[in-house]
Structures are given as C-alpha cells and as structure tokens.
C-alpha cells in the first residue's frame, strides 16, 4: 500500500502528470499575459481560450524530425534533455506542497532541503551549457559561453536573497520557513527587498527577457538550442516550464508564507501563489529589452549583490529586535 501511495505521489500528484499539466498551463498563462501586455491576443484557438496550445505545441514537436549533428557528442547531446527534465522534476518533490505536517515530515522534507533545492536549480544551467557546447555549432558555442558568464552574475545574489528569510526564520527547512511566516505574516514585509532581487535572479535563471541572452534570436539564432529539434527540443521546452513552476514555488515558499498543510487548500494556494509570482516574471519580460552579457554581470555585482547583503543586515537586525 505504501509503495502504491509513493508511486501515485511520484507519477500522478504532485509528480510528473500534475507537473506536466500545471507547467503547460503556466506556459499558457505566461504567453497570454505577455501577449496582453503587448496588446496582442495570445493563444486563442486550441482548447478554451487557447489553454491547450502549449500541449499541442509539445506533441507537435514530439512528432517532428529529430536531427543530431554529425560532429556533436552523440550520447551527451541526446541524454541532456532527459537529464534536465529529471532534475527539475526532482526539485519539485522538495517543495512543501502536499502532505506536509511538521510533526511527521515525509522523506523529502529535511533540515537543509533549501540548499538541495538551490543546487537542483543550479544544475539546469549546466545542462544548458553542456547542450550548447556539445552541439559544436558556432552559435551554440557562443550561447554556451554566455550561459556560464551569466551564471557567474546572478547565482550569488539569488543564494543570498533566498537565505535571508531562512535566517529570520532560523531554519534551513522549507516547510519550517513557510510555517514561520504563516504564523507571523507581517514579517514577510521585512524580506521585500530580497523578494525583488530573487525575482530578477529567477528571471535570469530562466533566461527570459531581459536575460534571454544565451538564445538571443536576433544575435545568435537559437543560441544553445540551435541544433536541437523534435523530441529533444520538446523536452527542453517542457523543462524550462517546469523550472519556472519550481522557481516560482520556491519564491512562494520562502517569501510568501508557503502553502497550508491541508492537501486541497495547499494545492489551491500553490496555484495562486505561483501565478502571483509568475505575473511579475511576465511583467518584467514585457517591459524590458534584452541587455548585454557584460551588463548582466556588472548589474549583478554592482547592485544586486550589495543589496542582497544589505537585506541580510536588515534581517539580522530585525532578528535581534524580535528576540
């Protein structure tokens, strides 16, 4: 019975099936918002209000011809999309969305899972780098170099800004951090600055405008994904959607008080809070233009990192006052 339950958790909810459906919904939501910001309609045709469009796109890509370049590292090139999807799906399991009670923690909730989640969110960046590098295309190579250069910029501010709510809550466990802020909602305001920094860094991690530098189409064609097509590209796109859900879930957990322990209430609040975060991600995407890779690094180290340190200072002072 326990095995069956675990299997249901892994495959149906909140595992792969739920993730697939929810991440395609999030892609639709993002596309629709982006389109409305630009005075366009966005997807309208497939399903009600175009809701099925991302799923249709996914299956269309799955059916397309899949080409591996002759000079590419065959094994690595083909394995990377599956690896990437596996990594971000695993990261999803660490989010305290379902079946969470602090007294009887499940095996995916432990002290320090925040660090593991951040690690799992760093890996996709390396997957993109390897994908670009192993396809040996000129544009992919430039894209891969840009992926790593950008990582150097946004990763440290992201870690610092996610750590500050953890320090205030006095725990490295996601479920405990969330419970701490649910009990004291006013303290959420202390981390407002960190939330903004984390939003910008997540935008960079997801490679969306203004940080869509590694696959800037007007400069380097498809960038890291230039040589990818068919099934592999479909998996990469799904991976990016899932990563967006996980990253939004992480921000909702540490900054917005997480999700109630009741499974149904937890699901509803997960959906509402991730949509709230993704609204801001779409807003940033619609209102900025792509900046250069050197500007990303300069911006991160000149503004984001010092501000994140300032936030840490504020958090430490507030913690002193409370106790």
């Amino acid at each position: 019975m326990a095995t069956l339950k675990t299997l249901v958790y892994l495959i149906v909810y909140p595992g792969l099936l739920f993730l697939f459906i929810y991440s395609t919904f999030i892609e639709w939501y993002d596309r629709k918002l982006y389109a409305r910001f630009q005075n366009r309609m966005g997807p309208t045709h497939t399903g009600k209000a175009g809701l099925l469009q991302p799923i249709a796109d996914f299956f269309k890509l799955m059916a397309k011809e899949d080409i591996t370049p002759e000079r590419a590292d065959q094994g690595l090139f083909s394995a990377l999309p599956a690896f990437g999807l596996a990594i971000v799906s695993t990261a999803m399991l660490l989010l305290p969305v379902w079946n969470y009670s602090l007294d009887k923690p499940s095996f995916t909730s432990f002290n320090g899972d925040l660090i593991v989640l951040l690690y799992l969110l760093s890996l996709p960046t390396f997957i993109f780098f390897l994908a670009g590098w192993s396809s040996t295309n000129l544009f992919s190579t430039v894209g891969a170099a840009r992926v790593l250069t950008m990582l150097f910029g946004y990763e440290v501010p992201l870690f610092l800004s996610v750590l500050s709510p953890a320090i205030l809550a006095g725990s490295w466990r996601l479920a405990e951090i969330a419970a701490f802020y649910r009990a004291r909602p006013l303290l959420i305001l202390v981390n407002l600055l960190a939330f903004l920094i984390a939003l910008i860094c997540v935008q960079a991690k997801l490679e969306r405008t203004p940080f869509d530098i590694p696959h800037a189409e007007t400069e380097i064609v498809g960038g890291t994904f230039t040589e990818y097509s068919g099934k592999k590209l479909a998996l990469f796109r799904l991976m990016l959607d899932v990563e967006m859900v996980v990253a939004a879930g992480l921000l909702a957990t540490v900054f917005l008080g997480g999700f109630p322990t009741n499974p149904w209430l937890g699901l509803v609040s997960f959906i509402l809070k991730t949509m709230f975060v993704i609204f801001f991600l779409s807003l940033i995407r619609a209102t900025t233009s792509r900046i250069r890779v050197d500007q990303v690094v300069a911006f991160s180290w000149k503004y984001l990192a010092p501000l994140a340190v300032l936030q840490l200072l504020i958090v430490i002072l507030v913690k002193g006052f409370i106790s």
Partner: protein
Amino acid sequence: MKFQIPIGPQHPALKEPIGLRVVVEGEIIRDADLRLGYNHRGLEKLAEQKTWIQNIYLTERICGICSHSHTTCYVQGVEKLMELQVPKRGLYIRTLVSELERVHSHLLWLGVAGHEAGFDSFFMYTWRDREIVMDILEIISGNRVHYGINTIGGVRRDLDELQVKKILDSLDILRKRSEYYQNLGTTEPSFVARLAGVGYLSKEDAIALCAVGPTLRASGVPRDVRKDDPYAVYDELPFEVCTADTCDVLGRTVVRIKELFQSYNMIEYILKNLPEGPIAVRAPRRAKPNEVVSRYEAPRGENIHYIKSNGTEKPERLKVRAPTLGNYAATIKMLKNGFIADVPLIFAAIDPCICCAERAVALVDARTGQEKVVPMLALKQLSQKISGLNARKREVEWPL
C-alpha cells in the same frame, strides 16, 4: 581564440539576404566583411526595355517601404528631361505622400530597433500605431504599400475636404503616440543601455565614408537634401534638419523620432495650405536626348537616380543609388570593436534595405574563394555545356 561567425545570408536578424562575416574574439568583433549580391534583380536593365510611364511602376517596386521615394526621384528626373512644369497642387500632394511615407518608415524602424534589442513590446506597439499611417495612405491613394500616386507631370489622385479632415484627426493620435515613444525610447533603462554608445561613428568618419540620412545626421552633420537642394515644395515648408551629437545608435533613434514630429508639422501645413488648381499636366511620350541626376531625401537617406534619354520613348540608362549603399562603408567601421550582441542593432540602425541596394553579382568559386569576372557569353556557354552533358546522360527522347 578568434573565429568567424557568419551572419546571413539567412539569419533571424536580417529580413533580407546579405552576407555579413564577423571575426570575433570572445564576444568582441575584430573584423567585419560584407558580401552583397544575393538579391540582384536586374532592375536597371529591365528599365531600359520599358517606356517612361511603365518605368514609374517598375521603380515603385524597387522597395516596399520607400516605394514613393523611388518613383518621386525617377519622376522628378523625367520631368526635368521633358521640361514639364508640375502644378502646385500636384507637388503638394506628392510631398504629402512623401512625408507620410517617412512617418511610416520611421515608425517601422523604431519597431525593428525594439525587436533587435529584444524589446518586443515596443515593436508590437509601434507597429500597431503604424497602421494609422497606413490607413491614411490608403485613404489618399487606395493602396497601403505601392501607392501608385505619382505620374509624369503630377499626381494621379486628388484630395477632398473629407479626406483632409480624416487625416488631420488621425494625425493628432499619431502625435500623442509618438510623444509616448520618444519618452519610452530615450528613457527606458534597459533599452537605453543597449543603444547608448553602441556603433560609434565620429563626425569625420561619417563624412569621409559618405554616410547618408539619419546615420549621418546622428553624427552631428546637418545634411538633408530637402534643405540643401530643395525639390518639390520643400522650400515653402516650415521644418528644420534634426541632428544628434551622440554619434551612436541612440542618436540615430533620437534623430528619427525628432523627424517624425517635423513630418507631422509638415503634413499639417500641407493639408491646411493646399493650393487650388489642377493636379497634373499632360506629359509627352518622348524625351529629348539628355541626361539628368535627380536627388531625393528618402526616409533612409539620400536617394539618387541618374537618367539618360536618347529621344525615344524609353530611357537609355537608369541608374539607382539607394541610400543603403551609401551607408555600407560606415557600417563596417561601426561594427569593428563592438560586441556580437550589438551586430543586429548596429546593422539595423542604418535601416538597411538590401533589395534597394543590390546592383551587382559577384561570382565566387566555392572551393578556392576566388572572385572572377565572367561575361554573359561565358555563362551561356557554361550552361549549354552542362545542360548538353545532362541531355546525353539521360538519353531521353522527346516523344513528340
């Protein structure tokens, strides 16, 4: 490590085929080279086989954006050859369409600049408002792209009160929207960060490399055919030449936005001071043997047509120098020591129209990279040789 990146002839940043080879070291461009000739259409040769009137429609199809620029330039030259006096009202309507064309071209360019910089919202908004100008052009001429309004000796369609009123109403919306874009395009931090200081072209270089149009004016040189050598009714219109002294892509953006407002003023003046009278005079079928150079300030810069007549009803020679050609040399200069990320922006900033500018084909041996000049006869013999071989190989007999 240095390596060469091919941008074009097929690339998402280019809407038309042109080969741009950049040698990069990391993200920095060390050398750049342009390869032309992917879009040669043999247009000048074709013009020699058509009559003066037919050629208006041919020159209109040189370009889809500045279609009116090419016809006006051509028609002006032919009118000079035929010694025609165009009526004032005709010239006013012709100028009105030129300025509307400038507005639509600059709005289009703003959108393209936004798109190249990854600012797609800007692109969507400017192109939405460009529809207003397109509608005005449709009101005047019945067409959105190839207006077909010019004829030798004047214009083909007149304006009535209702049309004038409609255009003036739309103009108010355009003015408001352009103010918004001026504000957005010059203050949005991430957009300005991409434009400022990019593609530097000093005043001396701009003059030495014969840059034209907004590219030249953004380097602080107030050169504009409309002011320097006024054609049509530009000597009667109130306007000033817009310049910028930042010498970069931001300057080129600012110049274009400023020109939008100048154009709105001119359009308003033309509509309010439209003289009465006929719109065209009758043109003869033949032009006396002579030659003429016609200059015109297209939205992209100075457009030059050289026309030679030999007393028949067809031109002996028509030579088109499109503004893009004048800006190529400056582009190479601007690209050097820039970032790869800036290539689309710098290239788009001259507002390139490749099919306007293609006048030659270079034959390059794919194996050795050698260029050679091949006469038409040799090409013919080569094709006969190859097709002859094919026929023998196939051994197919025509059944009839």
